[in-house]
């Protein structure tokens, strides 16, 4: 509990510092101007969402292998937190796109695969509400979660493999891509801050799932008496 409070406090401080850096330290981009500052929030949220989905994937794999409930707790925590981060990506993206492209949304490979990713993890969470028996629920959702994660590399690669309306990558984008060194430093600091926030939320959600299992166990004991 205390460790989670400390992690939460660190996350808040880092996130405030990252917002300050994005607005006051990063230089203004020449063609887009102020609107480009959404990039630091949007891309670092996307990366943190990917990491949360990876934690879910890891939990799913380990559950299928070891059948230990704690891996299912990790998986559902990663899925919910990843979904929150992807929701932020799907909101901030169109807010950036409207003044830059003149449209809120287009069905290109990156945007469509991200929307599909969001739908897959909504389905993962819905699936969990449909199965009452805990072990069966954990196994079915693990199998679905392993399948859902296949979309993550697709989202990551979409702007590298296909021509899209979405901008080409400026980080890990190969020759001819890149960022101003100060912009790059601010971006990586923002990504760090968002990852700490993501870990804090996963830890909170994991504790909730642990408590849920304890409640289910006690309810069965009370009912049995």
């Amino acid at each position, binding site marked *: 509990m205390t460790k989670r409070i400390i992690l939460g406090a660190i996350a808040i401080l880092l996130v405030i510092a990252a*917002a300050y850096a994005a607005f006051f330290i990063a230089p203004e981009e020449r063609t887009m*101007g*102020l*609107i480009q*500052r*959404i990039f630091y*929030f*949007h891309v670092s*949220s996307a990366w943190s969402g990917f990491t949360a989905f990876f934690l879910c994937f890891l939990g799913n794999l380990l559950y299928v292998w070891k059948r230990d409930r704690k891996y299912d707790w990790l998986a559902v925590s990663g899925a*919910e*937190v990843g979904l*929150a981060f992807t*929701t*932020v990506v799907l*909101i*901030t993206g169109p*807010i*950036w796109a*409207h*003044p830059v492209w003149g449209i809120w949304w287009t069905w290109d490979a990156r945007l469509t695969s991200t929307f599909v990713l969001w739908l897959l993890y909504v389905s993962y969470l819905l699936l969990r509400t449909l199965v009452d028996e805990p072990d069966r629920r954990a196994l079915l959702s693990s199998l679905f979660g392993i399948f859902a994660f296949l979309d993550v590399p697709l989202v990551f690669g979409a702007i590298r493999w296909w021509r899209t309306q979405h901008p080409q990558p400026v980080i890990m984008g190969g020759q001819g891509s890149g960022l101003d060194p100060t912009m790059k430093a601010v971006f990586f600091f923002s990504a760090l801050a968002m990852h700490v*926030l993501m870990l804090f*939320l996963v830890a*909170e*959600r994991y*504790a*909730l799932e642990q*408590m*849920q299992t*304890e*409640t289910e166990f*006690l*309810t069965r*004991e*009370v009912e049995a*008496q």
Partner: protein
Amino acid sequence: MKNLDSVFAAYVIGWGVFFLFYLTIAKRTSNLRAELERLKNSLPRAK
């Protein structure tokens, strides 16, 4: 300061989503804690 409103909206809505998500976790935790307490109290009576 062109597009300041859009940048402001993106950050505020984004933080709003995270804050609401955290609130739902806190609310569910508080409900479960109360339920756990109730169950723990009912166990000795059942025995």
